[in-house]
C-alpha cells in the first residue's frame, strides 16, 4: 500500500516532464492516460483502511533542503527583478529563519508520511477533480495564443502541482509541509502571471508576498515547536500539547487563514482571477485553498476551548462578510472567488470544533464544495472562450443562446444551497451541531447567527446572478457549438454530484425520506423543464402596461460602502491578532 502513496507523490513529477516535450496528439493522449492512472490509484488507496506510515531516507531530506534554498532564492530574485521590496524582504526573512532552524535538531521523532482517513479523502478530491480540470484545460489552453511549448508548460506545471498537493496532504513532517507550501505558492505565482500582461504580473506579485506571510508563520511555528516541544512532527506535537504553550498551533492557524484567503488576506485570491480559468478552478477553488481547512482539521485535536471558540467566531464572521462583499461584484469569477472564501471560512470554523461529527461535516463540505466550484469555474471558462463574456452586465438572455451552460450554472449554484446536494447537507448538519453545543457554552450563539446570515446572503447572491440568465428573448441567435471536451467534463462533474447524493443516501447523512423527497423534486423539475412542452396554449408577450417597447434587464448590486469595508478589515485583523496572541499566553 505504501507504494501507492509514493506513486501518487512522485509520478506526477515524471508526468510533468513527459508532457513538456511532446507534440499535441501525444500530449493529449498521454494526459488522458496519466489522469486515469492517478484516479485509479487514489481510489484504490481510498478503499484501504489501515494507516500508512513511511519515512524518507536521509538523501531525500537533503534534496528537499537544497530545493528549499533554491526556491527561496528564486523568490528573492523575483523581488529584486520587479523592485518589489515586500517579496524580497519576506523571502530574506524566510531564509534567515530557515538557517536558524537548521541549527537545531529535534529529538522526538516520528514518521514523515502518515496517511489517515482525512488524507485519503483529500487525495481523492485532488486527483479526481484536479484530473477533470486538467482534461478541461487541454482544450482550453489550445484556444489561447501562446507558443506550443508554453502550452505544454501549462499542462506540465498542473501535473507538478498535483504531485505537490499529494505530498502536502500526506506529510507529517512540518518542515516538508513548509517546502510543499512554498512550492504551491510558486505554482500559484507562475500560473497567475501566465498570460504575461501588466495586470497578471501585478496580481501575481501580490499573491506571492501574501502567501509568504503564511510561509513565515509556518517557519516560526517550526521554531517554537522545537523550543517548547522538541519535535517537528504533527502527530507528536498534538500528542504532547500542553495548554499553556500553544504558540505553534496558533501560528499554524494563521498560516491556514492566509492560504484560505480570509478577510485581511483576500486580495490575492480576487486578483488571481485574471489568470486562465483552469488555474482559478484548480488552484483557487478546488484544491490549493483546501489546504486551509485540511490544516485546521489536522491540528484541531490540539486546540484549547478558547482558541477553538475564537477560530469559530472568526471563521463565521469571514463567512458572513465575504458573502456580503460579493453582493456588489460584477465580474463573474470574482463572485465565485468571494463565495469560495466564505465557504472555506465556514469549513475552517467547523473543523475547529474537533469532534468526530465535526470532522465528518467538514470533509463532506470539502468534497462537495470542490465539485460544485469546479463545475462553476468550468462554465465561467466556457463563457469566456466561446461567448467572450466576463462581466455579469454583458450576459443577457443566455438561455436563448445555450441552454446547456445555463443548466450547468443553475445546477452549480443550486448544489451549494439547496437540498439534497452535498454542500447543503454540510450546512444543515453544521447548524444542528452548533445548536446542540449552545447548551454547553452560551457563546456559540454568535457563530450560529453569523452562519445563518451568511448562508442566506449566499442564497441571495447565487440567485440574483440568475436574473440575467434564464429570461428568454425573442431574438434568434446563431448556434455556436461548444466543444465536446467542455461538455463532457462538465457532465462528469454533474455525475459526481449525483453520485454524491447516492452516497449520502447510503451513509445516512440525512434521513432517507429527506434525501429522497428533495431528489425527486429536483429531478422532476429538470425533466419537466427539458422535455415538457405545453401545446395548444396561446403564447403572449409579457405585460408592460400595453406598451410595446423592448426591455433590457439588469441585476441588483449591493455595494458595501468604504467605511464598512475598512471596519470589516480592521475587525478581522484584530481577531486574527487575538488568536495568535492567545497562543502566546
Amino acid at each position, binding site marked *: 500500500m505504501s507504494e501507492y502513496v509514493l506513486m501518487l507523490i512522485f509520478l506526477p513529477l515524471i508526468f510533468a516532464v513527459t508532457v513538456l516535450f511532446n507534440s499535441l496528439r501525444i500530449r493529449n493522449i498521454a494526459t488522458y492516460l496519466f489522469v486515469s492512472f492517478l484516479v485509479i490509484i487514489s481510489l484504490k488507496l481510498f478503499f484501504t483502511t489501515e494507516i500508512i506510515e513511511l519515512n524518507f531516507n536521509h538523501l531525500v531530506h537533503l534534496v528537499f533542503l537544497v530545493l528549499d534554498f533554491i526556491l527561496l532564492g528564486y523568490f528573492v530574485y523575483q523581488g529584486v527583478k520587479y523592485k518589489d521590496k515586500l517579496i524580497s524582504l519576506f523571502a530574506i526573512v524566510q531564509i534567515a529563519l530557515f538557517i536558524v532552524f537548521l541549527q537545531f535538531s529535534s529529538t522526538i521523532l516520528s514518521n514523515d508520511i502518515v496517511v489517515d482517513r482525512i488524507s485519503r479523502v483529500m487525495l481523492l478530491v485532488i486527483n479526481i477533480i484536479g484530473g477533470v480540470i486538467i482534461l478541461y484545460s487541454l482544450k482550453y489552453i489550445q484556444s489561447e495564443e501562446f507558443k506550443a511549448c508554453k502550452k505544454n508548460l501549462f499542462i506540465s506545471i498542473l501535473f507538478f502541482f498535483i504531485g505537490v498537493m499529494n505530498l502536502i496532504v500526506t506529510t507529517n513532517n512540518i518542515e516538508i509541509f513548509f517546502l510543499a507550501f512554498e512550492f504551491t505558492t510558486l505554482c500559484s505565482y507562475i500560473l497567475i502571471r501566465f498570460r504575461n500582461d501588466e495586470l497578471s504580473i501585478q496580481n501575481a506579485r501580490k499573491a506571492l508576498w501574501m502567501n509568504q506571510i503564511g510561509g513565515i508563520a509556518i517557519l516560526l511555528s517550526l521554531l517554537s515547536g522545537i523550543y517548547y516541544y522538541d519535535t517537528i512532527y504533527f502527530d507528536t506535537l498534538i500528542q504532547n500539547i500542553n495548554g499553556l504553550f500553544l504558540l505553534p498551533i496558533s501560528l499554524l492557524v494563521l498560516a491556514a487563514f492566509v492560504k484560505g484567503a480570509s478577510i485581511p488576506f483576500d486580495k490575492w485570491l480576487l486578483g488571481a482571477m485574471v489568470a486562465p480559468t483552469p488555474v482559478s478552478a484548480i488552484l483557487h477553488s478546488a484544491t490549493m485553498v483546501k489546504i486551509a481547512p485540511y490544516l485546521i482539521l489536522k491540528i484541531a485535536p490540539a486546540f484549547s476551548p478558547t482558541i477553538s471558540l475564537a477560530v469559530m467566531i472568526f471563521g463565521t464572521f469571514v463567512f458572513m462578510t465575504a458573502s456580503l462583499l460579493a453582493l456588489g461584484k460584477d465580474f463573474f469569477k470574482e463572485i465565485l472567488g468571494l463565495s469560495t472564501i466564505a465557504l472555506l471560512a465556514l469549513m475552517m470554523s467547523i473543523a475547529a470544533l474537533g469532534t468526530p461529527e465535526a470532522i465528518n461535516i467538514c470533509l463532506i463540505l470539502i468534497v462537495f464544495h470542490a465539485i460544485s466550484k469546479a463545475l462553476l469555474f468550468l462554465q465561467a471558462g466556457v463563457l469566456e472562450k466561446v461567448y467572450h463574456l466576463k462581466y455579469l452586465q454583458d450576459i443577457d438572455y443566455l438561455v436563448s443562446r445555450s441552454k446547456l451552460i445555463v443548466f450547468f450554472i443553475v445546477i452549480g449554484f443550486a448544489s451549494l444551497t439547496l437540498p439534497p446536494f452535498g454542500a447543503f447537507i454540510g450546512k444543515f448538519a453544521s447548524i444542528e451541531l452548533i445548536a446542540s453545543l449552545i447548551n454547553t457554552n452560551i457563546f456559540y450563539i454568535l457563530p450560529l447567527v453569523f452562519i445563518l446570515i451568511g448562508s442566506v446572503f449566499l442564497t441571495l447572491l447565487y440567485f440574483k446572478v440568475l436574473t440575467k440568465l434564464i429570461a428568454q428573448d425573442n431574438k434568434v441567435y446563431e448556434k455556436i457549438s461548444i466543444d465536446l471536451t467542455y461538455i463532457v467534463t462538465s457532465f462528469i462533474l454533474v455525475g459526481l454530484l449525483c453520485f454524491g447524493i447516492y452516497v449520502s443516501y447510503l451513509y445516512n447523512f440525512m434521513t432517507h425520506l429527506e434525501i429522497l423527497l428533495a431528489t425527486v423534486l429536483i429531478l422532476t423539475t429538470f425533466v419537466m423543464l427539458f422535455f415538457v412542452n405545453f401545446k395548444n396554449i396561446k403564447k*403572449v408577450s409579457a*405585460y408592460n*402596461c*400595453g*406598451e*410595446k417597447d423592448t426591455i433590457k434587464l439588469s441585476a441588483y448590486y449591493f455595494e458595501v460602502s468604504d467605511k464598512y469595508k475598512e471596519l470589516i478589515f480592521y475587525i478581522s485583523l484584530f481577531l486574527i491578532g487575538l488568536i495568535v496572541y492567545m497562543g502566546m499566553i
Partner: protein
Amino acid sequence: MFEKYRKKSPWILHYNAGSCNGCDIEILACLSPKYDLERFGVINTGNPKQSDVFLVTGPVTYRSRERLVELYNQMPNPKVVVAVGSCTCTGGVFRGMYNVDDGIDRYIPVDVYIPGCAASPELIMDGVVKGLEILETKQKAGDDK
C-alpha cells in the same frame, strides 16, 4: 361546466383612455364602503391576464388607442367590455373634436354601455351586473375582433 361561476367572481381591469377622471373617481367610489363592489367578489386587478371585465372610461385619445387594443388582446376569453360614461359611449361633450375618437367601439367590441357624466356608482354597479349576465353566455375560446 364552470359558466355559472363566472358571474360570481368577476375581476376588473380599469383603464382610462383619456377621460377627465370623473368617471374614474366614481368607479373607485364603487369599491369604497358605501357602495361596496367587493360583495360581488369583484377585485380590481391591474393585470389584463387575470381579469374578466374591462372597464374603460374616456373618449379614445391619440396616445391611448394602441394601448387600448393591446390590453384588450392581452385579456383571455371570455371577457366583457363595459364602457363607462358618455364620453366612452359616444364621445360625450367632446364629440367631434380633433383629438378624440368618438367612443371606444371603433376599436373593440363593447358589451354594455353606461351613460352619464359622470356615471353614478349605482348605474355602474347595475351595468357591471348586466355585463356579468352577458359573460355567462360567452364562449371560452371565443371570438376576437
